[in-house]
């Protein structure tokens, strides 16, 4: 059992949080959405967290500029105001609007209806259209939706449209764009929007990025304001380049301590969501700081910010630093200016974590806040493992899974589905050497371990999708090439999946009775090897 590191001076989480909200340090016009008290007790086993400590600064007079958080500053600059406080509503200039095949057609429909059939988007270079959700399917409506995007992009001469034409082969034209002269080449296709946005250099510190997808908050890893919106709001942005946004107060999460080599960012965010619940950050910004955060790579930071929405958060932010600039060096040529929280910025609450004391976690069915230690779930028999999505399908996620398979040297005991998020990730899986393997690639290690062949990049089965989606949880049958022979087939409980994705509500991956355990790529790979939910330390130590 992890040793206790709770500060004794604090009161309980709930009381502390209630005390923080709506008091004199904020202007009288502000109003916060106060999430109701958690219905669940904080797990007594997770003891490495200190109670949240509020930062109270004395009220200042209206004429003096008060310190602002990073989120407040970004929104202030984007709304051309010198000062903003949580609760204010401002019209914000949007730097990037992203949409995909599920919400794009609806947003376009609204745009045309409201601004006219011949209306032009506010800026053809600030719209990024990324088909990624329902791509490799025979569903006619899904295919039609990609066509709708294409028609619109042609009509509007949209600069960034990561199109796909040949659904049978996502690679057509990508590797040899000059040689492949087939009419249905895919030189532009990327894959999962949030990973593509980062890889293609559309995420920049200090900017405002909106997307018609809840996991748009992923981009906060770059020190920008990024949040998900619906079709109607997107239609509005398409015509005006602005949106009315309410300034959220910020929760600060300070993570210090050296990251143990069996933990990944997924464990950190599962820790946090388990702590504050699925509504703990509703209407709030989540700011992640501390030495551990600084040690994370960009992809790991993306994982952290990705699941902010699972806590109800409006946006997540991580201050830009050398790691950020290095990542961006070869990806964007547009100028940007990072913004940082003032020293005297006011935070709604602060949570501190000693990361060195954390253990690998899962979120049990059916909620992302249903936190448990992986090792305490070792008797849970599973039927499949899914490694993919914007949360857990990036290059480093696959390298992490490969590390576990390499350490074990054995074969998986359940169908193990691998869905690289983008074509770049797919290529990395097939080309990058895995450290310590003597030059083997991830794909070789996966093959030796008996995993399914890495699939075409897309959102895949993270959200179920059309019935023919690869790895979708349909009935009690495994899809893919792995033939599963079970001695007992229990149709109601035979759909247990350990997944590196972001949600596990009922029916999330298809079948309503599916049981999804959210986990890090380490934990997912370890579980694949044993056929039970497994702490990766079984293989990594």
């Amino acid at each position, binding site marked *: 059992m992890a040793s206790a590191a709770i500060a004794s001076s604090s009161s309980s989480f709930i009381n502390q949080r209630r005390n923080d909200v709506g008091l004199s340090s904020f202007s009288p016009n502000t*109003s*916060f*959405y*106060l*999430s*109701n008290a958690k*219905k669940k007790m904080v797990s007594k086993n997770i003891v490495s967290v200190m109670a949240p400590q509020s930062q109270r600064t004395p009220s200042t007079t209206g004429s003096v500029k008060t310190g602002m958080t990073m989120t407040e500053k970004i929104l202030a600059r984007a709304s051309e105001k010198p000062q903003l406080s949580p609760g*204010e*509503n*401002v*019209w914000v200039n949007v730097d990037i609007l992203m949409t995909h095949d*599920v*919400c794009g*057609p*609806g947003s*376009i*429909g*609204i745009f*045309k*209806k*409201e*601004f*006219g*059939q011949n*209306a032009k988007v506010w800026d053809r270079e600030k719209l990024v259209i990324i088909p990624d959700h329902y791509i490799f399917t025979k569903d006619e*409506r*899904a295919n039609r*939706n990609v066509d*709708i995007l294409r028609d619109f992009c042609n009509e509007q001469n949209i600069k960034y449209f990561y199109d796909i034409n040949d659904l049978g082969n996502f690679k057509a034209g990508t590797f040899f764009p000059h040689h492949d002269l087939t009419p249905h080449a895919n030189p532009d296709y990327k894959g999962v929007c949030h990973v593509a946005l980062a890889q293609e250099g559309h995420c920049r510190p200090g900017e405002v990025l909106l997307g*018609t*997808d*809840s996991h*748009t908050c992923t981009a906060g890893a770059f020190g920008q304001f990024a949040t*998900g*919106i*619906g*079709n*109607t*709001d997107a*239609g*509005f942005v398409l015509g005006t380049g602005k949106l*009315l946004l*309410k300034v959220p107060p910020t929760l600060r999460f300070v993570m210090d301590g050296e990251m143990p080599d069996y933990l990944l960012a997924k464990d950190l965010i599962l820790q946090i969501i388990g702590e504050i619940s*699925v*509504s703990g950050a*509703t*209407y709030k910004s989540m700011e992640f700081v501390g030495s551990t955060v600084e040690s994370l790579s960009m992809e790991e930071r993306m994982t952290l910010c990705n699941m902010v929405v699972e806590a*109800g958060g*409006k946006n997540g932010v991580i201050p830009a630093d050398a790691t950020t600039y290095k990542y961006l060096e070869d990806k964007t040529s547009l100028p940007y200016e990072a913004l940082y929280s003032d020293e005297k910025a006011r935070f709604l609450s602060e949570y501190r974590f000693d990361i060195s004391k954390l253990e690998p976690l899962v979120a049990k069915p059916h*909620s992302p806040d249903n936190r448990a230690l992986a090792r305490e779930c070792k008797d849970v028999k599973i039927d499949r493992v899914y490694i993919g999505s914007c949360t857990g399908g990036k290059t480093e996620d696959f390298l992490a899974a490969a590390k576990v398979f390499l350490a074990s040297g054995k074969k998986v005991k359940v169908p193990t589905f691998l869905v690289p998020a983008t074509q770049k990730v797919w290529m990395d899986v097939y080309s990058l050497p895995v450290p310590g393997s003597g030059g083997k690639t991830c794909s070789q290690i996966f093959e030796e371990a008996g995993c399914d062949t890495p699939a075409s990049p897309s959102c895949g089965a993270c*959200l*179920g*999708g*059309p019935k023919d989606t690869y790895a979708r949880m349909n009935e009690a049958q495994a899809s893919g090439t792995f033939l599963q022979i079970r001695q007992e087939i229990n149709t109601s409980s035979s759909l247990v999946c350990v997944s590196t994705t972001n*949600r596990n*509500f*009922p*029916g999330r991956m298809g079948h*309503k*009775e599916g049981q999804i355990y959210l986990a890090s790529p380490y934990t997912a790979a370890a579980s694949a090897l044993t056929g039970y939910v497994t702490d990766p330390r079984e293989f990594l130590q």
Partner: protein
Amino acid sequence: MAAATFSSLHHKISVSNSINKAFHPQSSPNLIKLPSKTPRPSSFNSISPKPTLSPLSTRPRAAADDVAAPATAFHGVCYVVGDNIDTDQIIPAEYLTLVPSNPEEYKKLGSFALIGLPAAEYPTRFMTGGEFTSKYSILIAGDNFGCGSSREHAPVALGAAGVKAVVAESYARIFFRNSVSTGEVYPLESEKRLCEECKTGDVITIELGDSLLINHTSGKEYKLKPVGDVGPVIEAGGIFAYARKAGMIPSRAV
């Protein structure tokens, strides 16, 4: 307190004083007279009627350019759900190929509303197979209603299915925002946990002016939280109508 607010441009138009208030608190639950401001042939729900389908491929919604009578009350049978009803339960992802701005597909979306609710916990289904609208026009929910995805298909499916108002203990922000922006369902917050006080099938009246929910079946009344700053946006019929009223964007091209 309703969270997403859009009040920065305008003096507030609160719901209670905007129209001739045509009703009064109920003393006897059996004598319900709810005259709406402008007479409606068949329904008490006084949100402006959906205009006839235009030849455009887009589905018209409550249009600001029409003379719209803002809602003052809702009356109907309620369907009760619990906490953390996420968007996958409201409209599972496999139906998201339906484009809400397409009138035919809008209607189809309605037929799948709340189909993702597990049968074990919800044996009484919200829709029975083959229907496009539900007999339940009021949804009562617990905490964090609409959590999960940003898919606007969620409030749209509910609206298409005939839900006029949702009364939840609390909302997830994107769902709430989408409800307000689209004008599809009226998102209200309760003071108490109404999902424990009401049962599916109870006959409900919601009086917006008084912020009151009346359960005629149980005979009890409950205070609702005032709509607050989102009132003007909802009243106008969504963010576009509101922005037009504010002069933020020009009137819609005909």
